[in-house]
């Protein structure tokens, strides 16, 4: 993993024959990048807490569907998501046209607020999923105990939920901070101009505008350094989960209570659902007309994307599970360091990673032949942080609850993995597989240098359609992509949750 993130950077540096220097504009890019990343991650996580709490304690029709949809914005290609967002929040979007008869608007979201809005749209669902997992990891016995002790919701929050949040939030904050650090197209488009230049865009400029590999590598190093500091900070303030294992009783909550709380929860769920679903709905609406007439090559591209997604999901698991097991076994500082290393791969600039891989592979093999495997590998690396976030606490919990029993029965190696760990990890495994598959479906960024338009993946094909003015076909392809990604996510995630109540 370090090979992928730092090794590729090293390759770029080696090729550059030494680092470049940073100028004033680069530093303002660093400031802007940090500012928007902090703001976006704090806001995403802060909003995710009440939404996740409401989802954790309410049961309603469509809850499962909503939780699946939470995966959607995150996996959409940037351009599709941005157009969906603008269809709602843009100058000619839904809100502006509703305001028009009142003599108001159009609303103008371009600027820092637009960047943060888009990043929250992308990351609120992810944050909600991560926090929700924390909630679901509290054994129902504990809530039963709380109910027996006649806890008020405030007591439950203090004794059960706050300790859980203390262990979950720093990691969630970190992951989203890192995602926002490498944002580029979203920040630029909704930032309204070059004032919204991020470090990633500066890297892009250094690489393809100035062909100054040294400066590109140096900027990438800065981006990496900042991310590293953030990772250290997050792992320093995180405390490990404190809950023992339960008997896997279905989660029933006894603290369902006042009408006010019900209304508040309902409000949070409805608001979050609207915020996520309306822009997605616009994507569906625009795509529906184009979907039936898609050219056959788009379906071939979709098949290739599916293959890459499945390969990437498998690879993610092959990388993440041993890392999670090792992190738990090492424990303490070394375990945390291992996790941090795994998380950092997301902070690597996709462009630098792609370029580094290209420099390393070009002398050895034809990069085009490797396009699909490389895509799968890089996507697996990008999914790793989420996989670790989901798997490590679950492994730790399984070991804490059942480790001694397994030890006493002499369950080691594969038997321990198959009979004790994997069944206890079903939920996070399903989530991990689903997320990495879906993430891989939608990815475009890393492999520009490897891509072969003759064997394009679906997102690449989508851009190809747009580049050929075929916006309606592109909208149809976007819908196809959305359906496939969500479908993959749903199947895996569902598989992980099946029998959870048995």
């Amino acid at each position, binding site marked *: 993993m370090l090979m992928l993130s730092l090794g590729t950077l090293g390759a770029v540096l080696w090729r550059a024959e030494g680092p470049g220097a940073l100028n004033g504009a680069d530093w303002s890019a660093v400031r802007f990048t940090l500012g928007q990343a902090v703001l976006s991650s704090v806001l995403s996580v802060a909003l995710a807490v009440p939404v996740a709490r409401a989802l954790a304690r309410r049961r309603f029709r469509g809850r499962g569907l909503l939780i699946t949809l939470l995966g959607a914005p995150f996996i959409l290609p940037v351009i599709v998501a941005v*157009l969906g967002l603008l269809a709602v929040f*843009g100058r000619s979007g839904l809100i502006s046209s509703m305001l028009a008869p009142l003599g108001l608007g159009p609303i103008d979201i371009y600027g820092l607020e637009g960047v943060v809005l888009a990043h929250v749209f992308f990351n609120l669902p992810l944050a909600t999923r991560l926090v929700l997992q924390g909630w679901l990891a509290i054994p129902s016995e504990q809530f039963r105990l709380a109910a027996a002790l006649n806890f008020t919701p405030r007591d439950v929050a203090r004794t059960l939920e706050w300790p859980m949040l203390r262990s979950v939030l720093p990691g969630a904050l970190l992951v989203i901070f890192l995602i926002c650090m490498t944002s580029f197209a979203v920040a630029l488009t909704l930032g*309204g101009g*070059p004032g919204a230049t991020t470090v990633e865009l500066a890297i892009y400029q250094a690489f393809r505008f100035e062909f100054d590999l040294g400066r590109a590598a140096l900027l990438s190093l800065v981006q990496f350094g900042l991310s590293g500091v953030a990772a250290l900070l997050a792992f320093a303030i995180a405390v490990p989960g404190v809950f023992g294992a339960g008997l896997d009783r279905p989660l029933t909550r006894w603290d369902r209570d006042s009408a006010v709380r019900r209304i508040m929860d309902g409000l949070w769920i409805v608001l979050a659902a609207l915020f996520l679903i309306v822009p997605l709905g616009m994507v569906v609406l625009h795509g529906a007309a184009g979907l039936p007439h898609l050219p056959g090559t788009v379906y071939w591209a979709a098949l290739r994307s599916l293959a890459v997604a499945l390969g990437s999901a498998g690879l993610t698991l092959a990388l993440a599970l041993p890392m999670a097991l090792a992190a738990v076994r090492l424990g303490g500082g070394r375990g945390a360091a291992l996790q941090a290393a795994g998380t950092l791969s997301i902070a690597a600039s996709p462009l630098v990673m792609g370029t580094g891989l290209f420099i390393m592979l070009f002398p050895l093999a034809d990069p085009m032949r490797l396009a699909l495997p490389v895509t799968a590998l890089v996507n697996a690396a990008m999914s790793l942080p989420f996989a670790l976030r989901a798997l490590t606490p679950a492994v730790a919990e399984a070991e804490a609850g059942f480790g001694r029993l397994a030890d006493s029965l002499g369950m080691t190696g594969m038997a321990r993995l198959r009979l004790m760990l994997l069944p206890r990890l079903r939920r996070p495994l399903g989530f991990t597989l689903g997320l990495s598959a879906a993430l891989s479906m939608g990815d475009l960024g890393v492999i520009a240098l490897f891509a072969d338009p003759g064997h394009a993946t679906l997102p*690449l094909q989508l851009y*190809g359609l*747009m580049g050929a003015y075929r*916006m309606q076909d592109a909208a149809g392809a976007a819908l196809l992509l959305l359906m496939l990604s969500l479908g993959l996510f749903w199947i895996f995630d569902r598989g992980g949750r099946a029998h959870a109540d048995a």
Partner: protein
Amino acid sequence: MKVPFIAAGILCATMASAEPPVLTVYTYDSFVSDWGPGPQIEAAFEAQCGCDLQFVGAGDGAALLARLRLEGVRTKADVVLGLDTNLTAAAAETGLFARHGIADVAFDLPVGWDDEMFLPYDWGYFAFVYDKTRLATPPTSFQALADAPEDLKIVIQDPRSSTPGLGLLMWVKAAYGDRAPDIWAGLAPHILTVTKGWSEAYGMFLEGEADMVLSYTTSPAYHLIAEEDDTKAAAPFDEGHYLQIEVAGRIASSDQPELAQQFLDFMLSDGFQSVIPTTNWMYPAVTPAGGLPQGFETLIAPDTALVYSAGEAARVRDVALDEWRDALSR
């Protein structure tokens, strides 16, 4: 009984396809996409060359050059197709290109052409495209755009990541020289946003997010010919329009120099040129015998073509970028 025949057929086919020499052409992605000129051109050239033409897509023009620089002399490319005059100076500097040695071509370009390494295959003018049903009287110059009411919004592309974006930078610089920063300051309130690439900007325009988008004078031809939609038009600007000339060159270290040369000759013939207008949506560098497709006559024809020579373009680029950035970051 049929099986042996089929097997023999496959055998012959593989033997036949294994034999012809391979010509590798690096180009930008949209050229080789299913909807670009690539597939038709590949078929036409292969029909006459007895070779296997393989296109390799590498992002856009600037990414294409970056890839070539990364690969250096070990590149597999025999021909590179898809650079423009803003990139040719840097491309020539790599020392990878050979002279084309083709003289006396009657190019149908608005400006004269005289370059020993690169040959143009198509061209177009940058322009702001608008929707006639929503904008009755588009501005007629950068100055008029700057003076327009502030709710007239345009979307442009970032010159650091997009070819048209860089084109606009050069356009303003070529038209206004030292006054370019003032023009940018005047344009700033009208610039709704700056996107990474052409697709994002054009998509936003079609969604009605902005009144005008930076594109090409030929863009309305697509809507007219492919969609029978005549509502889109390019706004003629008094300052003149900046010219994008797309070129190709052959690699000196190629192991197929004759084929590469043959491809460059083919590139200027009708077999290639007639494909360009309705697939790349640009003007062919040598108008084919059949003329331009119906609909192209409706496009605006700027009186003044602005363009920097390759050397000038490389010289003014960084200054122009700083001016652009300063004016728009405020």
